[in-house]
């Protein structure tokens, strides 16, 4: 639903970095998207094709690495990846949980020519 603006940022950051590296073409962009972030890779791909047109990022492949949700139990400190949407600590069943991973949204690296 809000991937258009996000994809615009991806294109801007990628073009910036490519310019710094004096590259002529961006061939692949490696993205990390947390499973708890509200962003849908398919939508990002769809918008990317449109927004990168006529730039050196046109035709670049997007590689998505999905970062798993990770929680830390505040009662017994167990760190775990929840397997379903009902969040309980697997060790002590506590529901007092801190979200420690899964909200990432960043460009990790890219391949350029």
């Amino acid at each position: 639903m809000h991937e258009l603006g996000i994809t615009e940022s991806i294109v801007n950051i990628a073009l910036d970095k490519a310019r710094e590296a004096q590259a002529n073409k961006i061939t692949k962009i490696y993205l990390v998207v947390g499973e708890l972030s509200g962003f849908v890779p398919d939508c990002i791909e769809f918008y990317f094709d449109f927004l990168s047109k006529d730039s050196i990022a046109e035709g670049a492949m997007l590689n998505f690495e999905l970062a798993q949700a990770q929680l830390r139990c505040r009662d017994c400190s167990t760190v775990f990846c929840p397997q379903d949407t009902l969040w309980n600590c697997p060790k002590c069943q506590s529901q007092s949980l801190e979200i420690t991973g899964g909200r990432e949204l960043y460009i990790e690296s890219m391949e350029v020519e």
Partner: protein
Amino acid sequence: MKKIEVVRNILEANESIAAQNQRLLDKHKVFAINIMSSPGAGKTSLILQTMARLKDKLRIGVIEGDVASTLDAEKVKDGATAVAQINTRNMLESCSLNANMVSHALNSLPLKNIDLLLIENVGNLICPSEFVLGEHKRVVVSSLPEGDDKPIKYPMIFADADAVVINKIDLLPYVDFDIASFQKALQGLNPEVKIFLVSCKTGAGIEDWCSWLFSEIKAKR
């Protein structure tokens, strides 16, 4: 072919505009809260109740975010010092306010005449959790008819909230809403969160909410 490291947060553009917004608000000593909820939970009603109770003590500005219409801006304009309406229908994104939209709205408001800015986000429990606006406090309104499972279903927005207002408590005899289980799930995600039980219809609990808000504003000054 050459691989280059990037490691840059894709939301950085929004976050940097949000930081600018906050500097502008701080410069004019405006305390801003971002009010988020699903559609119909009572964001506008909470704003109306808050203005009714605080308008003699504070000069209140409102930013109304809606996909379409100026209905809410019309509703709040009598109690407010100034109102800005953002319609997201024609923008890049329509599901949430973002820092850039708020930045434009701030430019249209007489900030030096405002003490408290109430920003009503677009009704949605998912997208607004990704975008900071420059606010000082994030508030989620949740209402009894929505059910007591919302913190479990939409953990992000509740995990980041400074306060959660549970609205429509006058409906408690008629709906199956277990306040204790809502609170348990919410506090599990967010032990520091302030929780208020209110009815914007009867006015119950509004005083506690307003006292908290007022004390937060004083603490900031």
